[in-house]
């Protein structure tokens, strides 16, 4: 059990590192949901981070692009993350903490098919993101 867990965490860190190196994204991160109550969702593995503020964030289902992925199980993207104020439901805390302008988020599923994590990749520059980037990232993750 413990060994398995260690292996899993190494895998996620490796995945994040691999994506960070293979692409031009400024920041790549994985958020996972705890398997025990109260099932908090937190950013666990990151690459390209500017600070440690990601550790303080608790994701809310349905809020921000990563939270929307958790609720819907579908990928989300936005190129104007810095436009949303704190009161907006698209406000993405990780974008504020890492000064991201655009990002895409795709669901990570368990072997049984339910969403238990989200992978986020983003730019700090004005670069636009769209469905093409989503497809590309999914392809890279499944490699």
């Amino acid at each position, binding site marked *: 059990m413990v060994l398995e867990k260690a292996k899993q965490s190494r895998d996620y860190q490796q995945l994040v590192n691999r994506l960070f190196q293979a692409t031009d994204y400024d920041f790549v991160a994985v958020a996972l*949901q705890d398997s025990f109550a109260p099932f908090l969702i937190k950013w666990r593995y990151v690459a390209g981070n500017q600070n440690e*503020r990601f550790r*303080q*964030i*608790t994701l*809310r289902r*349905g809020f921000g692009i990563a939270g929307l992925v958790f609720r819907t199980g579908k990928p989300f993207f936005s190129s104007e993350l810095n436009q949303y104020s704190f009161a907006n439901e698209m406000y993405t*805390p990780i974008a504020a*903490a890492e000064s991201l302008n655009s990002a895409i988020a795709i669901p990570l599923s368990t072997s049984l098919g*339910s969403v238990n994590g989200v992978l986020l990749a983003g730019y700090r520059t004005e670069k636009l993101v769209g469905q093409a980037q989503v497809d590309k990232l999914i392809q890279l993750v499944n490699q």
Partner: protein
Amino acid sequence: MLETIKWLEKYFNQSPDAIMIFKDDELVLSNQLAQLLEQEFNLSADYLLQIAKNAWQQNENNDCATCLIKSQMKHVTTPVSFEQNDNKSISFSLVYKPLDRQENVFALTIENRDQQERLSNVEQQRLLNRYVTRAHEKERQRISQDLHDSIAQGVFSAIMGVRRISHEDLSPDELAQVSQAVEIQLQATLGEIKGMALDIRPSVLDSFGLIPAIKALAKRLQANSGVTINVLAAAKTAELSTDVQNVLYRICQEAINNALKHARPSEINVILTSHPHFIQLEVMDDGTGFDMSKHHGFNGHSLGLMNMNERVEALYGSFNISSTLHEGTTVTVKFPYNSNKKGTGELNV
């Protein structure tokens, strides 16, 4: 014609402002109120004339020759205050109005500023009332929306899960998965409900006091925003009245929310300290800040601040906000510890 002059004279005498008309610096005409004022305050018309002339000269001589505002000003106004016998002073505006420049005829009007201030206070109060009502309505709208979007949604998903468990023929693996999904869904909903309850009225504040309440608030907002919120509390809050604790908590909440909404900060510091005679709350952010001069007075942006100010002053506290563009904003609130002098027992600050 004679009749008309009589009416004019009557109106002139009954004017709520004291009016004096001068020709070649000699008083030629003054209404009843002006005469009364002269007697009451032992004033001479010459003295008032000197004040007005001084102000007029300053206005003429200063460097703003091309001043747009000045060119639109038809007369010069100076504030004056007279001392009454009982050492109370009354504030007036002294207005200098040229009537006929060639003949060198002009009028000095003494307008009661108390009245003007009272009028603008009434106006302020009206605006503030409207703002508070609107804010209440907005708050309800937000709560209703939250209930609908997150609570109702979560409960609905859970119902769907339960329905699957009872109606579908699931394998043990699937059953475990669906029931866990339902549990997660309900846990998330529970979290949202707790969060909403905290927003509406923190029970921590009632049961554990101000500092744990502020800490819980900061922790929650930090988790939701990705902005670091530090709380440094070195104050004795047990002796504070519930009113003061409530206001301090609300100001803290509003100031942090304002900073998160408008300033894009990376860090917010909340500092609560007690001093021999007062308790002080400071909320500082390192965000974009704003130009204080542009937000002075009544526009949509400062009504929230005005409301904070009112709430603090109602409990004999002081409220201050200072901000510099690109350097962040600091909100400071002070409450006296011993305000027994005020004598209202229920306050017990």
